[in-house]
């Protein structure tokens, strides 16, 4: 299908983008890479009055190490982040996860912040942000930028804590901690499709942070001490997610994946062999 008619605005500065957004409020939608929003517009599931295209705002195109975080600007594409040479050292979970986001043809245009703004419950980047305890930076015309943690930001299917007059200008992923290990794994119908279940884990010295995507209405993160019975903890987690049956998988199968993949990922039976022949970031 074709999108309903809208005005198109392409600002060149962050200030211009925010001013237009404040003026138009809920009539406006921000487009960056458009790899989720264009499909939504084509199917007329959203019919904004004005589209504000921030892909030409150069000051929002950056990847910077700052205050213990890797900060990614709102115009930066997933492909640009995958090509950032220090990624595997600085945020290894992101480096492992990026090849699983859509396909290289969509990563070429899709942005990191855009995927987080879209908040699809089975998307990989929201899961990564929530698991690592990252932050979303929101800016409007007045006042200091608002920083919201991944936990608070995702509120349900395609629903976030962003207010109508706020622009997501940046997301920040905590840099890897010494002695921690990070693992990611997902099951989908076809590589690059939406996850049936995606799991991300930050393995610390005393506890795991396990994130689950694709099951609940948002990414769910649990802290699991390393000295508890892992099978019990995973079973409790699997049931707490209130998995639903759909055309892709039954609720039973989703719970099975959470328990089985979770155990293998956390006990590191899954290392990188399974994806070793698909070299990341190419």
């Amino acid at each position, binding site marked *: *299908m074709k*999108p309903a008619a809208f005005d198109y605005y392409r600002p060149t500065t962050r200030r211009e983008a925010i001013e237009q957004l404040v003026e138009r409020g809920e009539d406006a939608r921000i487009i960056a890479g458009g*790899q989720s929003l264009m*499909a939504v517009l084509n199917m007329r599931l959203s019919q904004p009055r004005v589209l504000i295209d921030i892909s030409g705002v150069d000051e929002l195109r950056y990847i910077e190490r700052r205050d213990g975080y890797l900060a990614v600007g709102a115009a930066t594409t997933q492909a640009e982040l995958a090509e950032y040479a220090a990624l595997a050292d600085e945020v290894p979970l992101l480096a492992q996860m990026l090849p699983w986001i859509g396909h290289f*043809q969509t990563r070429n245009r899709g942005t990191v912040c855009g995927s987080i703004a879209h908040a699809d419950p089975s998307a990989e980047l929201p899961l990564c942000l929530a698991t690592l305890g990252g932050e979303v930076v929101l800016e409007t015309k007045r006042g200091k930028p608002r920083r919201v943690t991944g936990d608070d930001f995702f509120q349900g299917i395609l629903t976030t804590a962003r207010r109508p007059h706020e622009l997501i200008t940046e997301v920040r992923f905590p840099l890897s901690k010494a002695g921690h290990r990070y693992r990611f794994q997902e099951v989908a119908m076809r590589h690059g499709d939406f996850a049936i279940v995606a799991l991300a884990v930050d393995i610390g010295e005393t506890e795991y942070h396990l994130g689950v995507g694709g099951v609940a209405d948002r990414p769910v993160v649990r802290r699991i001490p390393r000295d508890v019975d892992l099978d019990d903890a995973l079973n409790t987690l699997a049931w707490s997610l209130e998995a639903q049956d759909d055309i892709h998988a039954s609720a039973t199968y989703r719970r099975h994946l959470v328990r089985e993949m979770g155990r293998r990922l956390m006990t590191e039976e899954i290392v990188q062999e399974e994806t070793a022949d698909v070299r990341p970031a*190419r």
Partner: protein
Amino acid sequence: MYVRLDERYRVTLTLNGRERSAYAEPRTQLCDFLRHSLGATGTHVGCEHGVCGACTVMVDGRATRSCLMLAVQVEGRRVETIESLAKEGELNDLQRAFREHHALQCGFCTAGILMSCHEFLGRVTDPSEAEVRDMLSGHLCRCTGYTGIVQAVLAVARARQNNRQETP
């Protein structure tokens, strides 16, 4: 740049090495603009929501779904479509390999697949079969299947490697 919904904006771009321009409404998708306004009908339009990959073109050297991009977004950019591959009526090595390896039947998906393969082989000179299959996962072919396509891409990669070795 602000274009009202009922206005038409004159988009100027470099299409397959030539500067071209035509008018587009804000909501016009790049794929329709290429086909209807610029006459580049080699690009095919399939699902219109980014799943099938038939409409893949290159924008500034990167394979991109042209149904997930607006015509106004390519202002000042470089776009390459399937029409750019053959030179002076001669199919290029990738296109010939598709024919040799029976990598197409109806051909509807082929234009998009070739553009993805074109970018991929420019970046990855010695791909494994798994990498080729991963690259193809962004495309749907409903008649040939993928075996012939994988063989064609691997054959081109090998042939290009050999050519490089013969002419240092």
